[in-house]
Structure formats: structure tokens, C-alpha cells
């Protein structure tokens, strides 16, 4: 047995040079970690810059919901008071945190899609041969995705402001950590799913089985008391849905309040999803190991 990295942790088709580098890994200087992080974030940034349509479409989706769907459900006579709101609000105001959740949900799933794409084109291999630990590579990729999501969120907030969705200005500051944390939770869920999706074509399944149920069975569109009136079972599902808690965390933060249970649940789910994603991408245990014999 070697004292260095056990060879079972490396994919069987890892190039000899990388294998040697990994086996000789004594610990890396900070600059090496930074170079790696910068490389991953920069690649994501380039991808983002080159795919402006993706940015626009990610914005158009929640805006359509805000301008058209919310108009249909406008409830011109006001939505009943529900925390954290202190008075009556219009439906547009209610739905906004849910739409931010939608941005982050789609963004997280889009990242998962891009990982499947990377795997198909082979560029993921280039990433994974980095001698830095796997968890760091995955977290960096996640951070890059979340950064894009945060940017989309604030552009959406800016447009919604003109649509009379005007939380207190301090809310825009308080909501930032909640958006980042929710972005990490949904991004790591996407990453976990990407380890299960074998082909790009299967992404439609992710849409139907993950995005839509998560979005609709949550407090994004309707207050939970109203869901409870309609169906106690659906209410239970909404409560079990981590997306509900991400939306509520952001909703409270937007009005300068902390929703501790939501924070706990979102933190817990982020840890579990990210842990599982790292495990799934672990060459010794996860999908990579299972795929290795047939993979080419």
C-alpha cells in the first residue's frame, strides 16, 4: 500500500502523467488552488459570455411569469397578509421570491446539463485530471454557476422594480447570502442529478421529474395556507420540498428578516446534495467508476 493517494481513487483511463502527479501530491500551495478556481470560473464566464441567449432566456422565463402569469392571477384586491409581509400585497410582489428561486433552479439544472455535455464531449476529463481534490473542482464549478445565477437574479430584481415590486432597499443586500446559499443548494442538486443522467437527451426527464414538481409543489406560486386549504397532501409535499424553504429564506431576507428553520433546512440540504455529488463523482464509488468499463 502506498502512503499517497490510493490508486483506486483514480479513473482507470487517467493519463500516466496525471496519475503520477496525483500520487506525488504532497499538498498544494494556495496559488495552485487559485489557478484552478480561476480556470474553472473563467471557463464558465466565457461560456456565459458566448451564450448570451442563455442569459436572456434565463431572464425571459421569470419575466414572462411576472408580466403574464401574475397578471392573470393578479388578485387586484390583494393577497392576504402572510409573514414576512406586514400588510396586503399584490400577487406580483408575492411571486417575486419564487421567480428568483426559478432562476436559480433553472440555473442549477442548466449547470447539470452542461456537465453532461462536458462529459459527452470529453472536456470533463480535462477537468478531472487536475491533481487538486475532486471536491474542490466540483465546488469551484458550482461557485461559477452560482455567480451567474446571482447576476441573473439582480438583473431580474432591477426589472421587477419597474413593475412596482419594490422591497426595502436593504432587502437587496440581505437577500444576497440567501440567494447564494439557495444557488449552492440547487446547483449541487443539479450536479448530483448530472451524475445520474447518462445522455444529453435525458435532460427532458430532469425538466419533467425535477424542475416542474419542485417548482409547482412549493410556496413559490401560492402561500402555503392556500395550498393547505386545497389539499393537505400537497401541503405536506410542499413542506418536504427543499425548494420551498429556499424560496422562503429569500422571501424573508428580502424584507430584512431571518427565517431560521428555512436556513437550517437549506444548509442541511446543501451539505447532503453536495456530499452526494462529490461521492457520485468519486472515481472509486460513483457513476464514474460504474461508467468506466464501457466509457470511451
Amino acid at each position, binding site marked *: 500500500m502506498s502512503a499517497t493517494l490510493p490508486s483506486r481513487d483514480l479513473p482507470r483511463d487517467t493519463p500516466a502523467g496525471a496519475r503520477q502527479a496525483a500520487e506525488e501530491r504532497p499538498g498544494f500551495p494556495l496559488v495552485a488552488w487559485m489557478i484552478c478556481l480561476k480556470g474553472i470560473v473563467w471557463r464558465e464566464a466565457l461560456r456565459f459570455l458566448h451564450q448570451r441567449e442563455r442569459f436572456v432566456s434565463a431572464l425571459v422565463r421569470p419575466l414572462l411569469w411576472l408580466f403574464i402569469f401574475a397578471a392573470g392571477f*393578479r388578485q*387586484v*384586491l*390583494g393577497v*392576504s*397578509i402572510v409573514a414576512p409581509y*406586514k*400588510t*396586503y*400585497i*399584490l400577487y406580483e410582489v408575492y411571486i417575486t421570491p419564487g421567480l428568483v428561486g426559478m432562476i436559480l433552479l433553472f440555473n442549477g439544472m442548466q449547470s447539470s446539463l452542461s456537465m453532461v455535455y462536458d462529459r459527452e464531449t470529453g472536456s470533463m476529463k480535462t477537468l478531472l485530471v487536475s491533481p487538486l481534490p475532486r471536491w474542490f473542482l466540483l465546488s469551484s464549478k458550482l461557485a461559477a454557476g452560482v455567480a451567474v445565477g446571482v447576476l441573473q437574479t439582480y438583473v431580474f430584481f432591477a426589472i421587477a422594480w419597474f413593475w412596482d415590486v419594490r422591497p426595502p432597499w436593504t432587502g437587496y443586500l440581505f437577500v444576497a447570502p440567501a440567494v447564494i446559499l439557495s444557488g449552492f443548494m440547487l446547483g449541487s442538486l443539479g450536479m448530483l442529478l448530472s451524475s445520474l443522467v447518462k445522455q444529453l437527451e435525458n435532460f427532458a426527464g430532469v425538466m419533467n421529474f425535477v424542475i416542474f414538481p419542485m417548482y409547482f409543489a412549493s410556496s413559490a406560486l401560492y402561500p402555503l395556507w392556500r395550498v393547505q386549504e386545497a389539499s393537505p397532501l400537497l401541503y405536506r409535499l410542499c413542506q418536504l420540498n427543499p425548494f420551498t424553504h429556499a424560496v422562503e429564506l429569500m422571501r424573508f431576507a428580502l424584507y430584512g428578516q431571518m427565517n431560521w428553520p428555512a436556513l437550517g433546512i437549506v444548509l442541511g440540504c446543501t451539505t447532503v446534495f453536495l456530499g452526494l455529488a462529490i461521492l457520485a463523482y468519486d472515481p472509486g464509488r460513483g457513476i464514474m467508476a460504474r461508467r468506466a468499463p464501457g466509457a470511451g
Partner: protein
Amino acid sequence: MRNWTLGALVAALGLSAAGPAHAYKIFVSNERGNDITVLDGTSFQVIDTFAVGQRPRGIAVSPDGAKLFVCASDDDTIQVYSTADYKFLGTLPSGPDPELLVVSPDGTRLYAANEDDNLVTVIDLTTGARVVEIPVGVEPEGMGISPDGQTIVNTSETTNMAHFIDRDSQQIVANVLVDSRPRFAQYKADGSEVWVSAEIGGTVAVIDAASKAIKHTVSFEVPGLRSESIQPVGVRITDDGSKAYVALGPANRVAVVDGKTYEVLDYLLVGQRVWQLAFSPDGKHLFTTNGISNDISVIDVENDEVTQSVQVGQQPWGVAVADVPATTN
């Protein structure tokens, strides 16, 4: 210089955030609950509730802030309570079914509209006796008084008129035809105009106080709402006359109207069936009674923003503010 600017900024922020605590109480009559809810004017929290007569509607505070007058409509009387400890002080001979009342600025007289008897009852507050009953139109309701106390305006719901009553002669000196079902009359602080809301007509008539001619008719339109839902009731005008607030009943909105151009500036979403309004003594807040949602909404007057809604009793109807320290006994 920088320190000075910073200091000023901190001071300004401190003032706007906390503000010097201006102690006052908010009284809300609960038409179905047969009680009065008392709220603290600093925290806007309910500090007390006390039982009054049957079907309390119009309420007013004496100019010195010491007494609260409550129209107990189904008891056919006006009850008087202490604003400090809510003790019952007595009743006033209002005549049957008093609905709205107004107290003269010098605190010597009280004018009440008797909805069922087509009368305005004048009560001397120094003796507590009825002075005279003035016949007006059918179903009198709204009561307004000029800042000098010389002219009293009553609106009659079925006759669709604003009746101008002279204080000294106790006679109607002018009748102004307004839109259907006039509910409320409010003078500007400078006495130049009277604003009369018409519930069914959906308008507010701005009447020139001197010529008694309608200068302008304000109408309202809320996108997405049928015009029948827009029923103007309570009206309040800021002391400087720059803005007027009109409660729009089942539209769940308070309209903000420019006091000079009469243009509607904004519609503020409040609770259900917003009825009457009252300013805080410093004029910084406006309170609305929301009859169906059983709460009051608090409006920040400077920013025209609804900051919160607070649950009160059953079917809140009238609201009055007393400039007395909000300490419970």
C-alpha cells in the same frame, strides 16, 4: 467637513428610523364587536379594548384630546369616554341612530347626523344639552366643519346633497347637488374647499367654500377593477393642503389625490372595505379602518406607502386619534 456631513447623515437616519416618540393613541370603533380598540401611536400595537354601546360607528376626540365621543347607533345615543383611562363619562342626547359626528374646533359644540330622522342634532358640550335639531335631506350622514367653526356641512345620502349650515343662524345657507350617495365632507385646513365623497357616484366633489360651487370632480379608476367596486367614503386632507386621501371602500385602496391639481397620484392597497381615515397628530401617518378584514392599515404619508396592517376588533368602522400619552392605567 466630512465629519460634519457624516454626523448630519447619521442624525437624519436616526431621526427617520426611530423618530422622536410622539405619544398618542389611536381609537378604532368596531361596528360589530361593539367595542373600541386602542392602539399605541408609536408601536401601532393594540394596547387595550373596551366595550361601548351597540353598533359604534362615528367617533371623534375633543380638541383637548381628553374625551372620546362614540356614536352608539343602535343605542340612539352618543357616549363619552375618557381617552386616558377609558372610563365612561356619560351620554349626550344625540337623537336616534347617530352615525357620524363632528366637534367644533373650540370644543363647545358637537354636531351629529341622525340617519333615520333626517336631522342634524346640535349639542352644547358645556352643558351636555341638545341645542337644536336642524332638518336636512334624507339619510344624513357625512359631517364636516370649517376650521373657524362657522360653517357645518352635512351630506344626505338619498337627497345627494351637501347642506351648508351656518353656526349662528342654525339654518341651511346653501345646498350643493353632488353625485349619488354622498358619504363624507372634509374641509381643507385653510377653509378654502370642501371635499365631498359620493359612494355610488364613485367621485369626490371639490366645492369652493366661498361660492359653494363645484370646482372639480375627482373620479377614480383602478386597472382591473370594475367601477362599481370603487366607492369613495372617508376623506382626509393634509394640513398644507398638498395631498388628499380618499378611502375607496370595496376597492381595498386609498387614493392619493394632488390637493392642487386634483390629479390622482397613486392608489395604495390596504385591507378589505376601507372605510374611514385619520391622521396622526404629527401628520406623518394615516390610519384606515378596513371593515371586512377586521384590521387597520398604517400609511406612511411622506412616501405614500402602506407600512403595515394591524388586526383590531370586528368590523372596524371609525378611527380617531388622541394626542395623549399611550400609557395603560
